């Protein structure tokens, strides 16, 4: 650094996060230290992504495959951009049951892809546990981009990053997760992560959308929105997954909006300055009112998307250290 500079030197960038495991399958299995290191490192990538030259060479020569058995625009493109900004080659594969219809099993697909020697597989699947099953059968790093109703770890990490940047901390905050908890992997991963980082987590939903014994996960449970939102710093509302509902869980979406829709009136119960999040894609007028969704002083929805890229860069970088040739050389003679 130039000695003539009068500027106060910026704090040193945090080092790349390290993870004990080769895969990121869920928040369960991460330690608080690992999660915090990932969040710290992601800050660097927020800055990098705001520069004109957004690209580094950390993953140069690496191949990342996005393997999506369920369609997704947001998550898939977020991983693709994150990988490209780190210099990796990326390939998007949407399977969506086409190969499965031809009789190929998940593990057949995994074996085929594994033979192409990718370095990282980002996998989304409609069945809980499917990504873990696949991870056992491949030689590369696997990142869970959502499995059934189980986990979606990078979503929770990006949500935590978004909140931390806006409010400066996670510990001590009160978070309400509202809506379709039953079908939601986002809810589960966020419950695990925000609790791990010291927040109080509530769930708010009509009873049929609450999974059995959800209180055993350490959350407090509310069925009335105004009670659930009381004193909350952050309200996270979830997409009502109508496509997953075999038997109707609710009489109608208009009744749902009446009792559980996040609008200005409902937010009056929360802490002044409350922030609203949604993992997307939104059902406007079902779980969230458009005025709230589009009000940038309340809604963090656009921030979540931006943080998603940075967060995934931090995850990819951390996992790349487990790849052959990926670990930094230990300093010689160090004792």
């Amino acid at each position, binding site marked *: 650094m130039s000695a003539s500079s009068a500027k106060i030197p910026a704090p040193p960038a945090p080092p790349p996060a390290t993870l004990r495991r080769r895969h990121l399958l869920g928040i369960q299995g991460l330690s608080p230290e690992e999660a915090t290191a990932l969040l710290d490192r992601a800050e660097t990538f927020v800055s990098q992504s705001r520069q004109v030259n957004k690209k580094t060479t950390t993953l140069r020569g690496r191949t990342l495959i996005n393997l999506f058995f369920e369609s997704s625009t947001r998550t898939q493109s977020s991983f693709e951009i994150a990988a490209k900004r780190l210099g990796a080659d990326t390939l998007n594969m949407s399977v969506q049951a086409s190969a499965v219809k031809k009789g190929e*099993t*998940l*593990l057949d697909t995994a074996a085929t892809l594994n033979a192409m020697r990718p370095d990282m597989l980002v996998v989304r*699947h409609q*069945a*809980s*546990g*499917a990504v*873990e*099953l696949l991870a056992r059968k491949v030689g590369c790093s696997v990142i869970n981009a959502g*499995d*059934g*109703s*189980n*986990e979606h770890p990078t979503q929770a990490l990006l949500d935590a990053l978004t909140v931390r940047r806006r409010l400066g901390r996670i510990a001590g905050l009160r978070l309400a997760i509202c809506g379709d908890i039953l079908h939601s*992997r986002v809810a*589960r991963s966020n419950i695990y992560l925000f609790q791990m980082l010291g927040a109080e987590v509530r769930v708010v939903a009509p009873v049929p959308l609450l*999974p*059995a*014994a*959800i209180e*055993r*996960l350490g959350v407090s449970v509310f069925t009335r929105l105004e009670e659930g939102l009381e004193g909350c710093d952050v309200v996270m509302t979830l997409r009502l997954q109508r496509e997953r509902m*075999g*038997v109707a869980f609710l009489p109608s979406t208009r009744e749902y909006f009446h009792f559980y829709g996040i609008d200005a009136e409902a937010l009056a119960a929360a802490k002044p300055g409350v922030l609203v999040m949604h993992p997307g894609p939104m059902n406007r007028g079902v779980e969230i009112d458009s005025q709230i969704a589009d009000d940038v002083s309340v809604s963090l929805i656009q921030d979540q998307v931006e943080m998603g890229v940075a967060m995934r860069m931090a995850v990819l970088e951390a996992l790349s250290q487990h790849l052959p040739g990926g670990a930094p050389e230990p300093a010689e003679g160090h004792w």
Partner: protein
Amino acid sequence: MSTPPLLFRDARLVDPASGLDARGALLVREGRIADLLPGEARPAAPDGAIEVDCAGLVLAPGLIDMRVFTGEPGAAHKETLASAARAAAAGGITTIVVMPRTDPVIDEAPLVDFVLRRARDTAIVNVLPMGALTKGLEGETMAEIGLMQEAGAVAFTDADRSVADSAVMRRALSYARTFDALICHHAEDPGLARLGVMNEGELSTRLGLFGIPHAAETITLQRDLALVELTGARYHLAQMSSRASLPVLEAARARGLPVSAAVSAAHLALNENDIAGYRTFFKTSPPLREEDDRAALADALARGTIDVVVSCHDPQAPEDKRVPFSEAATGAVGLETLLPVLLGLVLEGTLSLSRALETVTAAPARLLGLEAGRLARGAPADLVLIDPECPYTLTAAELQSRSRNTPFDGRRFQGRAMRTFVAGREVFERG
């Protein structure tokens, strides 16, 4: 053609039907038990007799397994009657009752006859078919119970399906009573179980899997027992999984209804926590439930509230199990672990040896009206020689079954079948 007499010497004769448990000998002639000699460990052998020195091991009636799925006809890659029979023999089981869930479904007399003929030609143990209760197991139209019974079906069941329509169930029960036929029913409300793949509770929430509540079983069981009260038919609960079913069954018994129940060895040895990590070999129907359920079912078995233990042997191919949990087939092989699981309950003190063996010999024989299942003069010489305490580790690779989907791979057991005889003929000897 006459076969030489067979003398079992120096055995511990255990016959739950008569309460016999004594050191002694047993003589077999022409495939039947000719004499029981308690107190005489080493009697003189009749001329030309083959002697089997039992060295103090347990000699008991061969086991009768009331719930076995095979792949014959229709899915021989999973299991044939021949391979199921080999597995049974290795497990000390001398009679298997096979389920009609095959392709085609065993829902007509000629198909019952087919199973019996295939078994006669290929199987080394006794095979008794159950016929379908409704055509195609579809729960809509009653199958030809009378004709199938005449052809040799020993009971009637929709296998692993529940009859949803109460009117159909009522008519099937009342028609079955005409023939004094036993109805064996899988009690699980199809609506409540529709999306479910495991027990509903904290673990299903943590795994993000849909659960099946206890009420799915108790609702159907309560309905069935109300219909038994209405019709007087003989009813057997194919498999109990929930402790909530116990008071329901006990109340019906107290009213004198002709009801009985079975539990699978898996439900006596495992609980839902074994699923952790989405292990599909632990996906069963009904699902494995909590440890409290397992303990309560074992206790109810000891008390006699539950009558029978079954293997619920259900072979599945790797391609149906090596898939995500919610997409995987249900079922586990069990013929070779039925006896070891029971002996484990004996060793831990939950069951006496006599009670443990009763649940797989005299009890199913009584329900099915079989002359096997006891050590008595004139009874078929279906016998098993058991080492009740030998320790070993089970490995899936050594199973005789054509499918290897056992939840007990790598599990340590104590006690197993050493030799098995059907009608006096040795069908298995542990090498």
